[in-house]
Structure formats: C-alpha cells, structure tokens
C-alpha cells in the first residue's frame, strides 16, 4: 500500500520534473518570469488527447504537444521582444489566449483517454510490454529514464554556443549585446524550448491520468516554481548540471509533499480542493523564509 503510494508519487514527480526543467530555463536561466506555463501545459495535454482520440500513436502525439508548446513560447517571446510588452504581461496574455485555443482544440472542456473507450496511451502501451519486472515498477523506471535523458539534453544544450548566449542573456543583457548577440533571438529560443518541455509534460500527464482538462493548467507555474526553489535549497551548487538536477529533485519532493497532504491531510480537515491554496502557502513560505529568518536573527541580537 505504502509502496504503491510512493511509486505513484514518483511517477507524478517525474512527469512534473519535465515541467520543472522548462520552468528552470525561463526563471533561472533566462531570468524571465514566464506565466505562459499555465496555458502551455494544458495545451500539450489538449493536443495529445485530440491526436490520440483521432488514432495517432501516443508517442508521436507527444511530439506535437511539444511542438505546440514551443509555438506558445514563441508567441510570448514575440510579444515581449518585438512588441515590447513586459515579460509578466506577455506571459499572461498568451496564457489567457491559450485558454480559448485549448477549448477550440479539444472542442469541449474535457477529453477522456480511458482505455475502456479503446484509447491507447503511452501508459497502456508500456503496460503491454512483456518484461520480467512488473509494470508498476517498469513505468516509473521508464519515466525516470525519460526525465534523465531530457535533463542531459538540456545540460548539453546549455553548454553549446547557442545555449551560452541564452544563459548570458539572462545574466547580463548589456554585456551579451556588446558581444554581438541578438538578445531577442536568445529569448525566442529559450522561451520556446521551455514551453515545449512544459507542453510535453502536460501531454504525458494527460495520458497518465487518462484525460485532458482545460483547467489542468491552473497554478502549474507555481508548482513548477515551487519545484525549482525547493530543488535549489536541496541541491546546492550553481552549475547547470546541479541546477537541473535540483529542479528534478524539487519536483519529486514537491509532488511527494502534495501526495502526502492529499492522503493524510483529511485528518487535519484538509480537502483535495485545498490543493492550490496549499501550494501557494508552500511557495510563500519558501520564498519568505530567508527574509524572515534574517529578521528573527536581527531581533534576537538586539
């Protein structure tokens, strides 16, 4: 019972880790608070769900999820770099536009991918694989491998010439322009890559939970941010490799904490609908902790 609880939390944690990698790229690398995530996550889910229902291979459907997410990121970057809209607002505008677009794509607010309706998802395909180990171990293992491969790709990318210009753009825009880099291009690439990862995460999660819902993106940016911040306090170090690792660890820990709250929280009067509230409180606590600690210290000393 407990084992299956942990395994399920891990599965969800790995799926969230993909989103956290995306959020890491915008928030930490590009220093761009990108709220597109709340729209691109359900966008990935919507695209995957519609394509699967129409009979596409669920793995290929994920590619289109990522592609759609990349386009959403491009739109936000375009609003910011070419139309000079502030980062926060550019992200919110794309997000709100995507709400309608997602409804258009799905044709209704919710699409079921249940196997009872005959739909094949990544999960059903993985369950059918004949292996000496049981599918309940095999699936989290595959998720883990997917996450680690993506992490490795992100790490490698951030060490390429293009990757370096993206990192420098987030660090010191003036310097990198003086070095002859078009910072607009760097932001376009960074934002589309980030949202491609987010949408991939959404597409996978829809298949995992067996449905896509237009509201499934609400608060995802905070969840991603929480993962990145929690990870940063658990995995210390400023290299790209350690920071992406931190995002993954953070996502898993965050997901585990949420799962525990859902499982045992009712003892304290907690309801599943309080989830977003809990997430907000968690992020507020983490963000304010360093300041409050310093303040308490000052008070103690005086």
């Amino acid at each position: 019972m407990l084992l299956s609880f942990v395994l399920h939390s891990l599965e969800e944690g790995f799926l969230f880790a993909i989103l956290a990698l995306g959020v890491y790229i915008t928030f930490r690398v590009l220093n761009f608070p990108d709220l597109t995530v709340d729209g691109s996550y359900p966008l990935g889910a919507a695209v995957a769900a519609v394509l699967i229902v129409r009979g596409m291979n669920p793995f290929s459907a994920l590619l289109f999820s990522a592609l759609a997410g990349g386009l959403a990121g491009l739109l936000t970057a375009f609003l910011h770099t070419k139309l000079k809209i502030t980062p926060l607002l550019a992200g919110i505008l794309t997000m709100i536009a995507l709400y309608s677009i997602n409804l258009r794509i799905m044709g209704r607010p919710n699409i079921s991918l249940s196997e009872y309706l005959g739909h094949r998802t990544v999960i059903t395909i993985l369950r059918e694989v004949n292996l000496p180990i049981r599918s309940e171990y095999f699936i989290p293992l595959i998720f883990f491998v997917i996450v680690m491969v993506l992490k490795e790709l992100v790490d490698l990318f951030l060490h390429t010439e293009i990757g370096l210009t993206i990192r420098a753009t987030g660090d010191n825009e003036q310097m990198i322009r003086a070095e002859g880099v078009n910072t607009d291009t760097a932001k376009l690439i960074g934002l589309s890559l980030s949202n491609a990862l987010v949408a991939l995460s959404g597409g996978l999660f829809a298949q995992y939970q067996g449905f896509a819902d237009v509201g499934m993106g609400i608060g995802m940016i905070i969840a991603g941010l929480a993962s990145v911040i929690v990870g940063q306090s658990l995995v210390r170090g400023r290299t790209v490799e350690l920071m992406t690792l931190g995002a993954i660890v953070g996502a898993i820990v965050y997901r585990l904490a949420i799962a525990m709250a859902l499982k045992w929280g009712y003892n304290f009067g907690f309801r599943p609908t309080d989830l977003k509230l809990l997430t907000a409180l968690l992020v507020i606590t983490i963000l304010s902790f360093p300041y409050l600690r310093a303040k308490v210290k000052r008070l103690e000393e005086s």
Partner: protein
Amino acid sequence: MLKISHLTKIFFKGTPNENVALRDINLEVASGDFITIIGSNGAGKTTLLNLISGVYLPDKGKIEINGKNVSNLPEHKRAKFIGRVFQDPLQGTASSLTIEENLAIASLKGQKKRLRFAVTRKKREEFKEKLRALGLGLENRLQERVGLLSGGQRQALTILMATLSKPDLLLLDEHTASLDPKTAQKIILLTEEIVAHHKLTTLMVTHNMEEALKFGNRTIMMHEGEIVLDIKGEERERMSVKDLLDKFSEVRKERLVEDKMLLV
C-alpha cells in the same frame, strides 16, 4: 577609420526635461589613434561612446566605421567592429558563467552561434595562454564562475574579452574609475600593453587628467555636448596637467567646483 559627422543626440526631446547631450559633433579618428577623452560630468562623453556602439541611435548625424555607415545598425550588429569596457566591472562579464564560458562568448563575437560545444579543448588552451599573459593567475581558474572574481580581475578579463577578436575600435569608458588606485594602475598599464600589441584604434574616457595626457596620442575635451579642445603631437606633449586644467576653467569660464576634476 572612424568618422563622425554632425552627430546630435537629444534626450527627452520635446519635454521640459529636454537635454541636448551631443551637439553637432564632428570627429575623425585615424587608424591606430589612441584618443583620451576628458570633460566634466554631463559633457556627453559616455553618450558619445554609446552612440558609436549603438546603444542609442542618433537624432542627427552619421557614424562611419571603415567607410561603412553604421548610424542605424543595431548594437549587436556593430559589436563585431567594436570592443567595449565599462566603468562598472560587473557590466562587462556574465557573473554566473565561468571564466572560460565568458571568453568563449567573446571569441565568437560577430560569428554565427551554432549548436556545438562552446568551450572546446583547443579553445581552452588558447584561453589559458591569453590569461597567463595577464599575470593574475586566472589561467588556473578557467572553470570558476566570474562572480567569484574581484573587480580588478573582472576588469582585466573584460579587457581581454573586448580585444580577443581584435576589434577595429576599442571603447573604454572610465574603465578604471571604480577600482582601487593600485589595481587601477595595473589595469591601465595592461590596457596600454594590449592596445599597443594589437595596434588598436582606441577611445578612452577618463577623469584622470594625468592619465589623459600620459596615454595615447591625442586628447579631446568635451563640454556640454561639444568638443572644445582637440590636441595632439607637439602641442599635446607640451601640455601639462595644469595647462589642461586652465584650459578647462577657461572653457567653463568659472572656477572648478567639481572635486572629481581636481583629482590628478
């Protein structure tokens, strides 16, 4: 090699805060010139450098580099001709990137960025050699983040980065002003050495009158957006710091009130 004609820049045009930062500037810089630029705060020195490098676009006038009109070229497209070092040591480098990553960016200046590793073994050797020449021991710290370096070390690194691709034009904006005197001395000597070695055409803004006369082959003085003095050759050699200050007072027709100008 650099030709500036009728360059004018007005900030907050058409508002009560309208400020003419540059007024019909004409300047011709020969290849290999090392020009020092002096002038009080608000004289337009930094604005001039910013216009040359494309941070702002001019309201009027033309800027040509090697016969090419760059007046309306965006900053990142001019960068391949121009190396820059700023007053603030934090400005010229990316602090979350390592020393070798910063150098890699500088080495790719003006080139198309590709999807291949930025720091190769070959490049690393090349960087090591260049860093060794600085004599700061940075060649053993290639993989450290630049944020861990001191202001002087960062400024030395910035100079190396700015000159790595041998730019046509080197712009130095009071690049020693925020360093302690000893480090400033080191950096200015390093600058001179690198400029001489690559025979770089250089514009250096400074508040230090002694430096202004000691380094380079030509000195210009700016005041309220205009070039009020332009000396070179014999005339410049005969000029002392006191003469320069006198000239300066003459231009301002008032006593020097600014402490910074008296620092020699």
